[in-house]
C-alpha cells in the first residue's frame, strides 16, 4: 500500500471524491500501464518538476495547426493562415512574464524546431485532398472536444464518461476520417504506424468517433512528423479499427473502469513493476524504488503538484 495521499480533488470536475468519473485516453492508458503510475499522475496530481518538453511541444504544435485551420475556415488564404499559425507558435512559446522564449534543453524539440515544423507541415499539406469538415455551426471540426457516456456506471449508478479531443475531422472521397497529428524523433516507417494497432488512444478516438458520427467514420489518418535537428519530415498513414475490434476494446474498458473503482475504494494502487522501464523509464521510478514510508519526502524535491482534469486539459503524456 502506498503511503501517499490523494491531492485535493474538490476542484477537479472529472472526479467525485477519489473516483474519476470522466476518463480520457491519457487516464485510461496510465491505469492500464500501471495503477500506481495512474494514481500518482492523475489522482495524486504529481508531475516531474521539469515539465516534459514532449508535452509542451505537442500542445504548441497542435494548437498552432489549429490556428491555421480556423483561419482557413474563416476564408483566409494559405499564406495568411500560415502567418496566423506561425504567429501563434511564436507568441505561445514566449514567456511574457520573463520576457524570454521557452527554453528547451532538447535539441530536437525546441522553439526553433516547433516554428519550422508548423510552417513546413502547412506547406507540405497545402493542397490536402482531405478537407476539414465544417460543422453545422459553421466552425471547422478541429480540436473537437467529445464527452460521451461510456456505457459503464459506478457501483452507485453514476455514469462514467469518456472524453477527449480529436485533432481534426476530414472528408476524403465522401468518407469521414479522424486526422491525428503526431510528432516523433524517430524515423517514420511502417513500424511507426503499426504501433498504433492496438493502441489505447486511437481506440478511444475511433470509439468516440463511431458513437458520435456512426459509420461515416472510416478510420484514422495519422500525419506523422519526424522532428530532427535540421529538418522535419512528414508521412501519412492509415490506422484501422473494425467494429469487432472496438467492441472488444469497449468490453475491456469496462473491466479497467471497474478495477479503478475497486482500487479507489480500497486506497490500494498496485505497481506494475514490469512497465518501469518502458518509454525511456517511468518518471516515478525514483519514488517507487524507495521504502513506502519515505516516498512522500522524496516526492517533494523533484516533483510538483498539478491537476489533471480531462474535462479541461489537452495533451497526452
Amino acid at each position, binding site marked *: 500500500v502506498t503511503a501517499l495521499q490523494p491531492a485535493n480533488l474538490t476542484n477537479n470536475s472529472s472526479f467525485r471524491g477519489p473516483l474519476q468519473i470522466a476518463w480520457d485516453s491519457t487516464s485510461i492508458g496510465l491505469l492500464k500501464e500501471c495503477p500506481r503510475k495512474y494514481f500518482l499522475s492523475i489522482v495524486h496530481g504529481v508531475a516531474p518538476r521539469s515539465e516534459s518538453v514532449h508535452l509542451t511541444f505537442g500542445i504548441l504544435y497542435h494548437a498552432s495547426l489549429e490556428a491555421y485551420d480556423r483561419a482557413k475556415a474563416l476564408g483566409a488564404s494559405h*499564406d495568411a493562415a500560415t502567418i496566423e499559425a506561425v504567429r501563434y507558435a511564436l507568441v505561445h512559446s514566449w514567456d511574457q512574464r520573463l520576457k524570454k522564449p521557452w527554453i528547451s534543453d532538447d535539441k530536437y524539440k525546441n522553439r526553433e524546431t516547433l516554428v519550422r515544423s508548423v510552417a513546413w507541415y502547412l506547406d507540405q499539406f*497545402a493542397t490536402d485532398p482531405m478537407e476539414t469538415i465544417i460543422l453545422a455551426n459553421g466552425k471547422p471540426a478541429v480540436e473537437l472536444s467529445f464527452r460521451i457516456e461510456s456505457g459503464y456506471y459506478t457501483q452507485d449508478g453514476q455514469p462514467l464518461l469518456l472524453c477527449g479531443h480529436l485533432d481534426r475531422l476530414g472528408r476524403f*472521397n465522401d468518407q469521414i476520417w479522424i486526422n491525428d497529428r503526431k510528432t516523433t524523433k524517430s524515423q517514420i516507417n511502417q513500424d511507426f504506424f503499426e504501433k498504433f494497432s492496438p493502441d489505447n488512444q486511437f481506440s478511444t478516438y475511433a470509439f468516440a468517433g463511431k458513437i458520435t458520427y456512426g459509420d461515416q467514420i472510416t478510420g484514422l489518418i495519422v500525419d506523422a512528423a519526424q522532428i530532427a535537428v535540421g529538418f522535419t519530415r512528414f508521412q501519412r498513414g492509415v490506422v484501422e479499427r473494425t467494429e469487432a475490434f472496438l467492441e472488444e476494446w469497449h468490453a475491456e474498458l469496462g473491466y479497467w473502469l471497474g478495477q479503478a473503482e475497486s482500487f479507489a475504494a480500497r486506497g490500494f494502487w498496485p505497481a506494475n513493476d514490469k512497465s518501469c522501464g518502458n518509454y525511456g523509464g517511468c518518471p516515478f521510478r525514483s519514488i517507487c524504488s524507495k521504502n513506502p514510508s519515505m516516498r512522500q519526502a522524496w516526492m517533494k524535491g523533484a516533483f510538483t503538484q498539478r491537476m489533471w482534469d480531462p474535462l479541461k486539459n489537452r495533451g497526452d503524456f
Partner: protein
Amino acid sequence: MSAPDQNPNPSSSTLISSELAEDSLSVLFSRDPLSLANKEIEKIVAALRSQRAKFALQEIEEKTKSKAPKGAKPAKSAPRDPNAPKITLSLEDLLK
C-alpha cells in the same frame, strides 16, 4: 500519378525574398513576438520555406545518388499537361 498532399516545393508565391528573410531569422526569433509586425512574420515564413526548399533539394539529390548507377544521368521528368483530365484520387494518393 502525382501525390496531391505532398508539396515538396514550397509555395511559389513566397511572400518576400527568402534570402533577405533568412539572414534576419535568428534576430526575429529573439524578439518579443507580440512586437512583430505582419511583415516580419512573413519574413520568418519565407525563411522557413527557403530552408524547406533546400532540404527538399538535398533529399532529391541524395535519392538520385543512391538510385542512379555510376555514371548514369538522372532522367528528365515529362512536362505536365495542363489540359490533362482530372483523375479521381484513391486512398493511396492521400497517403503518398
